[in-house]
């Protein structure tokens, strides 16, 4: 598998190519997309992006965890976690594209 990692810069560059706005504005809009998705999740909303996937927030109860190194018990407070469920289309494309 290739080690290449895309960042915000690559996404901005794609928007710049596709839409023809300035590089600066493209970068701002990519940031805006990510911020609005984050804000909705922080409000506790689910974010459903057809053909991409669904981000949902789940509440986890408090439980007693254990430091795996020392074996010592440590309380884990209740918390909210984010899960991403890829769409069928994304799963299919990722499975097809990475066949060995």
């Amino acid at each position: 598998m290739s080690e290449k990692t895309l960042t915000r810069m690559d996404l901005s560059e794609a928007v710049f190519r596709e839409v023809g706005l300035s590089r600066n504005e493209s970068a701002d809009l990519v940031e805006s997309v990510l911020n609005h998705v984050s804000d909705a999740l922080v409000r506790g909303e689910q974010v459903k992006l057809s053909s991409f996937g669904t981000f949902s927030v789940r509440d986890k109860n408090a439980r007693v965890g254990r430091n795996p190194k020392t074996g010592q018990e440590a309380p884990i407070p209740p918390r909210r976690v984010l899960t991403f469920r890829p769409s069928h289309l994304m799963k299919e494309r990722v499975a097809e594209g990475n066949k060995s």
Partner: protein
Amino acid sequence: MIRSELVQIIADENPHLFQRDVERIVNTVFDEITNALAKGERVELRGFGAFSVKKRDARMGRNPRTGESVPVEAKAVPFFKTGKLLRDRLNGKET
């Protein structure tokens, strides 16, 4: 929130852009992520999270209806890990 609502919010904030351009911007962001994963690449968006591809080994599955064993091929699946900043924000730790 669904895709069209996301497009609407960004269109409202950017009255100088055509709605169809905003649609293309939103689509490009998510298509680009899918395309990268389909090529086996990672996408790291600091503060938001990272998308990567995980390999699942071939295994013996079971047809839940008949209880029959069926081989399941090895495959690659998309994976998302929440970024630290977003994880903190979800738990009320604004920075």
